[in-house]
Structures are given as C-alpha cells and as structure tokens.
C-alpha cells in the first residue's frame, strides 16, 4: 500500500511532532475516559451500593412524640413498602477530635444509634472491623477513612461543651444517606449497647430521638415521598418541636455526587482544552509538513499521485498516531485508577470501584478520533488546491509577499536585528499558529494555577459559591432574642452581627413548584457574601430573589411573580434577582424580614450571625457566650468551622486533581514548546547553513534566531496569560453551569499571571538556546542537508 508507505515515512521523519501528539492524545484520553466513566456510571454505582445493604429510601428523625401518626402517614402513601424505627441520641452541638491523626477539634452534629439493634434497612456492613470491638468502640462513616485518614483503633474524642467521652474507632460503614458531612452535616455513629446507654443517660450529650427508615417501591421518586410526608405531617403536627429532620434518597444522591461531578467536569474540561491544543499542534505540524515537503508533494503529484492519495496518507498518519495515543491513554487510565478510586471514594463517601467500561471506551475513542481526524483533514485540505507546478516552485501561490519592510539599504536596524526581523515577518502564518499554541498553553497555565489557588489554597471564592455566610459564630435564641442579640452585638471582639434566618419554603409558579431554602434578613447589603448574580436582592416586602436552579425548575424568570406557601398562608413575591449557591443543591430563595412578616405576622428573628474581629478566638468566644447566657434558652455554634469541615473532604480530592492537572500541563508545555521551537528552527536550517557559509558566526546566527523567535514567544505568552486572567472566571462558571453557577469570582493573582508570562518566556528562551546551540558544532554543509522534521 503506497499510502501507508508515505504515511509511515512521514511519521519517521517527524519524530518529535509524533511523540508530542501521542502524548497529548494519551493525556486527553485519560481525562476524557476517566471523566466520562465516572460521570456516566456514578448513578448506577450508588444505586447498586444502596441495594447491597438495603439502604433506606427515606429517613425521618423526630422527638418521638408523634411516632404512631407518622407511621400512619407512611402507610397512607402509595409507594410505601416497609419501615423500621429505633431509638437514637441526637447531639446538635457536638465536637470531634481524632487524637491519633492530630487534627483540630471540629463541630458537627451527631446521631448515635445502637449497633446491636437488629435492623433490616440500611444494614451495617463493617469495613476494617477491629478483631475485637471494645466497649467504647464506634463504627464511623467510611468517608472518615478515605478522606480524613482515620484508622481502626484511633481514638475519637466526642465533646459537648466541657464533657468528653473517648470512643475507639472499631470499623467503618457505608451509607449513602450519611455518606459525607458535605452532604448532611451530621455523623451517624454506631456504638455498642453499653456505650449507647451510657450516652443516653447523660442529658448534656443530647436528646433522645426517634429514627425511622423507610423503603418504597420507587427509588427514583423518593423526593415525592418526602414532600407528601411533609405535607401530611403538617396537618397532624403543625408546630414540629425538637429535633426534626427528613432525608430522601434522591436528594442525598444528588448531593453526594455534586462535588465529584464538579471534579469530573473539570477533568472533561481539561481534556477538551488538551484536545484543542492537540488540534492546533496538528494544524501546526500539517502546515509545516506541507510547507517543508511542498516540493516532494509537487513531485509526487507530477508523477501521478492524486492529491486525494496524498491527503489520504496524511490522514492515515494521524490515524496511526491517534490509535497509539489512545491505547497509551487507556493503559494509563488503568494504571492511575487507584488514584481515581481514591478521589471518587473520598468525595462520595462510598467505596468506588473502577472497572473497564466498553461503552465509555467507545465514546472517548469516537470523540478523540473525530476531533483529530477532522482537524487534520481540514488543515491538510489545502493540498487539494495546490497544483504540482506551484508546489514544485515552492508553493508561490500559498505565499503572499508583503512590502519589504526593512530594506537593508536604508534600515537603521543592526545586521542581526534586520535578518532576525526579516525571517520573523516572512514566517507570518507559521508565527500565527505557533503564537496561538503558546497562547493556549499560557492561558491553561493561568487557569490551572487559579483553579489550584482557589480550590486548595484560599477557599473564599469556593465558599462564596457555596453561598453560606462567613460568620464565625451563630447563635440561635428562642426567648429574649432582641435583648440577647443587642447585648452580643455590643460585646468586645464582635465586629458585626446580622440576623439571618432560613426555612424550607415551597415556591410556586404556574402550577409548578420547587423547594428552596429561603433566607430571611432585613438588609441583604449587610451580608458578607453576596450571592446575587443578576438583578438585585429583595428590598421590599413583596420581593424575592431565587437561584437559577429554582427559576429553571419553575420555568420562571426575573420579573415574574411567584408565590410562597407557609403554613397555609400564601403570598406573592416579585422575582427581582437571581442568586447562586451550591448549598442545598442550589435550591435557594431570599426574602426580606418584612416579606416574612406577610407570611407570618408574629415572625421574630431567631438566628444571629456573629462576625468576630480578626484574631478573636472562636472557641473562647463561644464559651464566653455560653457562660453569659447559661440559663437562657440559646444554642451556640462555631458556624464557619463546620463549613470548613464540610469543605475538607472535597478539598483532598480536588487537590489531587488540580495538582495532577498542573503537573500534566507542565509536561505538555515543555513538550509542545520544544516541538514548536525545534520545528521552527530546523525549518530554517538551510537558510542558516547558507548564512554560515557566507561568513556569519554561530553567535550572530543564534542572535538572529532569538530575534526571530522570542517576540512570538513573549508576545503570545503575554497575550495568553492576560486572556487567562480574564477568561478564568467565565470558564469556571461554564464548567459549573450545571450546578446553577452563573458567575465565579475566583481570585486570579496578577503575580501568577506575570509569573506565567515570565516562566513560559524563559522556557521558550531556554528551548531556543538549546535547539539553536546545536548549530554551533555543525559545518554549513551539514546544515544544507535535508532531513528536517
């Protein structure tokens, strides 16, 4: 096969370009395959996991006062199959510290259940079970092992105020409902009979609760079960005192997958960026290939080869390269699967197992093949338009000669400057493509740096996306609120306080409805975290702001009037703004205190957000408040700490991913820069050889090369980095769009932008010098010889 021969010959001649492309395609394959395989299999995986332990479809936690009524409601709902009920201990203001990992104490609510209670729903299968479970043994969620590094045998200190109980970790369990504190900020812990009784008998640790788990016949519609249940419960038990919570499988499943979906979206986005780089590299190498071989192509055509055959040989060449790159990428994906398993497991809190997914392999292969072959077809297509004569005469038609910009007769440039400048101007088109590649590389660098910084170093932009306030302390009071809140605001160490409540509202519009965590405060401009992305926050009592997720679910827009149903009262609100938040699965709403009073005239703010002055210790402040109001009915929590705790499990995974991406980007940059610069310099070999023959010294020639290469490198890296500075947030928002994020405010350090420009330019300079230096040792005759990439 003649075409195959030409193709393999091309590959042999262009070793560096081939290697670079193979690497790019392999990396794109890894990202694409891993991203798609996780994204498309996560749902099935979680359902399968849940089925293994007969996991609950719905859970309610109440104070036990209405158990019979609740059971009746269950039975009245069509999809109900079975339920189980047991006693538990609910501790709202508990704190934890793993003594063995040396971590700091953190706040998280707890639900204690008795390990020895027989149960058929959400059975406990213990991972890493202690050979002998000690009396104070506790079975903790699997996420603590995979994300926080807890081990069987570690001592876990459980604290409420000044009371401490030491528990020993005796194993881990998997349960979607309580898989990760990023989803439900509560631990479900299993302790043995004696320990359970001991805790139950100490009221300081919390209050008794009634925990019930339900199985339905429709696992895909558990939210409907939940809303039916909530509605029915209101009629029998309107006031709902004490600890009360419901969890539905569907909501928890989405919640658990949010972060990993973001990570995988980041991976897929990276793979698309890499494919884009590969595309320009292909464009670059086909263009230079054609330019360098224009005479050969002309000769082949003159001999009678059709341009279609030559085009075919180029396509066969890229087909072979893609096949090798894809196979390598697939192999590498298998090799790195332990890392992926770790990342996925720690963010969903369940033991993920990676397999080979033939469908995903085919999808990735199709995406990569189509993009690579498509781009090589289009960039090589111009061969069809070149006549053999034009090709033999060096493709005159493909070159437009501009005006002679610096005629030597008159120019003031020095000799080297003039020659460098001339070759710079002469290679306009190639400069453009090379510049585009370098721009992309520097854009991606800035983007990766920014992703790393905002995900792993300074998380404030992430926290803003989550949509929670950054108050250090939260106080909830149910009596004397006004006096207490005023006193706290005047306390030393307090910088600011804002009254901010929220309730689970149901927003209705045109027969559709959506649940939304509805925030209430008097003046939204006083909040520290601004979640508004369009329009404005509500100011008047008839105004509301909704997240885009809620708006989409309702099919409403800004300017529409929606209604809120609250304990039988319905009021209409005008949508004046769009907000965004990860929190509560992106379902959020915001109304003013006055607006809330229209729904509930006796409404009184119960929640105070307290922002401490810099340097004020949160722990000691909480203790101070608790002491001061010891005989008042208040609850105090280190608010911000628990948000950070929630971010921690996410952080480990995202750190692995962004670090991996940074490393890979670095490899790509080095390879691609080397390729581009080498090809550009090798292309000029004959010209350089002749210059040397005429009497130019190596230093003069290296000087000329620097002048003809560096402006493109420096200019393109600067343009790319600046573009990266402006494009990072829109790109990020695009990646997170599915989560209702319209606007990102990631911090892009101008210093990093400068560093990127400097780094890429220096790398370019080093490459130019290394490649250019090879002309030092070569005699002019050797440089005439062909054999160019």
């Amino acid at each position: 096969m003649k075409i195959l021969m030409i193709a393999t010959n091309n590959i042999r001649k262009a070793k560096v370009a081939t290697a670079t492309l193979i690497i790019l395609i392999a990396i794109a394959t890894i990202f694409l395959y891993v991203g798609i395989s996780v994204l498309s299999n996560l749902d099935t995986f979680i359902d399968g996991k849940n089925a293994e332990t007969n996991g609950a479809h719905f859970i309610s936690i109440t104070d036990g006062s209405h158990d019979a009524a609740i059971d009746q409601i269950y039975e009245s709902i069509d999809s109900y199959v079975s339920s189980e009920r047991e006693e538990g201990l609910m501790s709202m203001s508990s704190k934890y510290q793993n003594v063995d990992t040396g971590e700091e104490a953190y706040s998280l609510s707890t639900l204690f259940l008795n390990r020895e209670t027989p149960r058929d729903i959400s059975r406990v299968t213990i991972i890493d079970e202690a050979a002998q479970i000690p009396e104070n043994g506790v079975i903790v969620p699997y996420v603590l092992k995979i994300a926080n590094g807890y081990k069987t045998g570690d001592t876990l200190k459980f604290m409420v105020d000044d009371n401490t109980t030491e528990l020993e970790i005796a194993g881990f369990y998997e349960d979607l409902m309580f898989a990760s504190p990023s989803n439900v900020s509560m631990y479900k812990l299993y302790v043995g009979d004696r320990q359970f009784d001991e805790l139950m008998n100490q009221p300081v640790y919390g209050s008794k609760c009634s925990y019930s788990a339900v199985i339905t016949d429709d696992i895909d519609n558990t939210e409907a079960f939940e809303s039916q249940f909530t509605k029915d419960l209101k009629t029998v038990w309107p006031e709902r005192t004490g600890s009360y919570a419901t969890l539905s499988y569907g909501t928890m499943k989405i919640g658990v997958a949010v972060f990993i979906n973001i990570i995988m979206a980041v991976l897929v986005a990276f793979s698309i960026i890499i494919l884009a780089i590969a595309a320009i590299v292909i464009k670059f190498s086909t263009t230079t290939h054609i330019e360098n071989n224009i005479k050969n192509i002309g000769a082949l055509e003159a001999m009678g080869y059709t341009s279609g055959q030559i085009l075919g040989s180029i396509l066969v060449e890229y087909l072979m390269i893609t096949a090798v790159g894809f196979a390598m990428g697939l192999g590498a994906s298998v090799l790195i699967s332990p890392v992926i398993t770790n990342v996925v497991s720690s963010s969903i809190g369940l033991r993920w197992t990676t397999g080979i997914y033939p469908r995903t392999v085919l999808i990735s292969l199709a995406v990569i093949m189509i993009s690579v072959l498509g781009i090589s077809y289009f960039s090589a297509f111009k061969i069809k338009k070149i006549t053999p004569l034009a090709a033999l005469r060096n493709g005159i038609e493909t070159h437009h000669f501009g005006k002679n910009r610096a005629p030597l007769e008159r120019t003031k440039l020095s000799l080297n400057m003039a020659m460098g400048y001339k070759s710079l101007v002469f290679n306009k088109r190639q400069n453009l493509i090379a510049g585009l590649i370098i721009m992309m590389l520097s854009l991606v660098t800035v983007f990766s740096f920014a992703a790393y910084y905002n995900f792993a170093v300074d998380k404030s932009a992430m926290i803003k996306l989550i949509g929670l306030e950054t108050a250090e302390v939260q106080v909830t009071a149910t009596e004397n609120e006004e006096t207490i809140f005023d006193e706290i605001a005047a306390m030393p160490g307090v910088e600011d306080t804002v009254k901010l409540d929220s309730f689970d509202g149901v927003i209705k519009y045109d027969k559709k409805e959506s649940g939304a965590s509805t925030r209430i405060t008097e003046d939204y401009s006083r909040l520290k975290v601004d979640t508004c992305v369009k329009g404005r926050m509500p100011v008047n009592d008839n105004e509301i702001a909704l997240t885009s997720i809620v708006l989409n679910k309702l099919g409403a827009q800004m300017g529409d009037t929606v209604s809120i149903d609250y304990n039988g009262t319905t009021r209409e609100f005008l949508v004046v703004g769009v907000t965004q938040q990860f929190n509560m699965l992106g379902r959020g709403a915001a109304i003013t205190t006055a607006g809330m009073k229209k729904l509930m005239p006796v409404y009184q703010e119960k929640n105070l957000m307290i922002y401490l002055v810099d340097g004020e210790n949160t722990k000691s402040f909480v203790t101070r408040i608790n002491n001061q109001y010891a005989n008042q009915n208040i609850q105090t929590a280190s608010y911000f700490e628990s948000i950070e705790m929630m971010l921690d499990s996410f952080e480990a995974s995202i750190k692995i991913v962004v670090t991996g991406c940074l490393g890979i980007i670095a490899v790509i940059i080095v390879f691609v820069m080397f390729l581009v610069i080498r090809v550009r310099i090798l292309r000029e070999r004959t010209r350089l050889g002749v210059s040397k023959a005429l009497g130019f010294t190596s230093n003069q020639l290296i000087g000329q090369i620097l002048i003809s290469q560096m402006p493109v490198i420096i200019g393109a890296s600067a343009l790319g980095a600046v573009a990266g500075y402006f494009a990072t947030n829109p790109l990020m928002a695009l990646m997170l769009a599915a989560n209702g994020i319209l606007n990102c405010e990631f911090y892009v350090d101008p210093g990093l932008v400068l560093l990127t420009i400097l780094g890429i330019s220096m790398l370019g300079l080093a490459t130019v010098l290394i490649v250019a230096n090879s002309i030092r040792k070569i005699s002019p005759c050797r440089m005439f010889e062909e054999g160019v990439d």
Partner: protein
Amino acid sequence: MENTILKAEMLSKTYSNGSIMQHVLKNLNIDIKAGDFTVIMGSSGSGKSTLLYALSGMDKPTLGKIDFKGEEISKYSNDRLAVFRRKHCGFVFQQIYLNETMSVLDNIIISGLLVSRDKKAIAARAKELLHQVGMTEVCYQKYPSQLSGGEAQRVAIVRALINAPEIVFADEPTGALNSTNAINVLDVMTEVNASGQSIIMVTHDIKTARRANRILYLKDGVIIDELKLGSYVKDDPKRHKILREFLERMGW
C-alpha cells in the same frame, strides 16, 4: 603571480551512510596561486562540489590540511572559519541557496554588511554588479522564489562578488544561464580575475572552461591531470582545440 594563496595537502573526505563508507576525495593535493582562474572539471559525482566545500572551509575534510597564505585553516574552529570566509571568500552554490526571507538586493547587501558598514557603497556596488550580469531594477525588490532560475543564479553570483573576495568559489555558476547571460557573467568573472582575485570554478561547459588559465580534471576523488592554458584570449580557436583534446583524453 607565483605566490600560493591556497594549498591543500593529502586532502580526504569520506561520507558514511550507515555502514557504507564512500571515499569522495582521496589524498588530493592542490595548489592555487594568487590570480589563478582555475576550472575544475569531471563527471557527475566525481567530488567537485565536495572539493570546493572543503577548500572554502565550509566542510571539514576527513584528513589532510589546507593552508591559506601559510595559515592552516583546516585547524580553525567553525566560527573562525566563518570569519575567514567572510573576509576572503565568495561562494556561488550549485543549488543557488538565496535567502528566501529577503529581497534580491537585501540578499546581496547582507553579505556586504559582514565586511563593511558603508551601506550606500555596498548598495551602489550591488546595483552596478547586477547591471553587469544583465539584471534590471525590476528585480531589486523581488523575493527569490519570484525569480527565474537564471535570474536567481546571477543574483547568487553578485552576492559572491560583492566583497571583492580574494578567492571566488563558483560551483557551476552558468548552469542555468542561456549563452548571452552566461557570457555576461563570465565577462564579469574574467574582469574580476584580471584585477587580481583568484577564481576556482566548477563547470561542465567547454565554453565556460575556456576562460581559465588552468584546468584540473577530477576523477573518483583524485586530480588525474592538469592543463595549463595561459591567460584568456577572446575568440582563440587554438585554445579551444587544446582544451577539447585534453578533455577527450580524460574520457569526458
């Protein structure tokens, strides 16, 4: 006229292509006197271009030594050789090799600027030489790939002559020229030679070879014979006959 300007002793050049070794020049001795117009002839592949590259210090010989005015240039570093070439040599390549990134005029001036800083004088001389080889002003700002083969060859010749080098190496400088243009070019070369510059030229053409005062015949990397012709005299039938007989003897 008897002082030697360029001298090669025991010159050898071997190319290795993978495992195959090809001895292109074999223990070759050559002596060029100042003011000589030397023509090297020989069949294709006999090593003529290789010899010119070696003599001009463009390629390092595998063995042997080359002296320029008593200085052993074969010991020079690449960069020193470059400086040597710019000061003393002009070269016309068989493949022409103009710099495609710059105009005709710039291609010539760039060589001139290596030696002198007087742009005006260089440009003036370039235009004068271009005129002499029959190139008009239309060509000045053209780029090499816009030239015909013969035009490009004449530009390359002017480039080699721009610094009035002591030795001009010309590898088939008239290969692409019609007879009128060839005569113009050779007239320029003869004139240059008359003013004392040495010329070493490779050619396949008897009419061109007639211009020389000595002919060297190269075969399989060895100079097998030499013909001394004396200074060029225009339209001398005897000169032509001697040359023809010499070449016939050589089996040309």
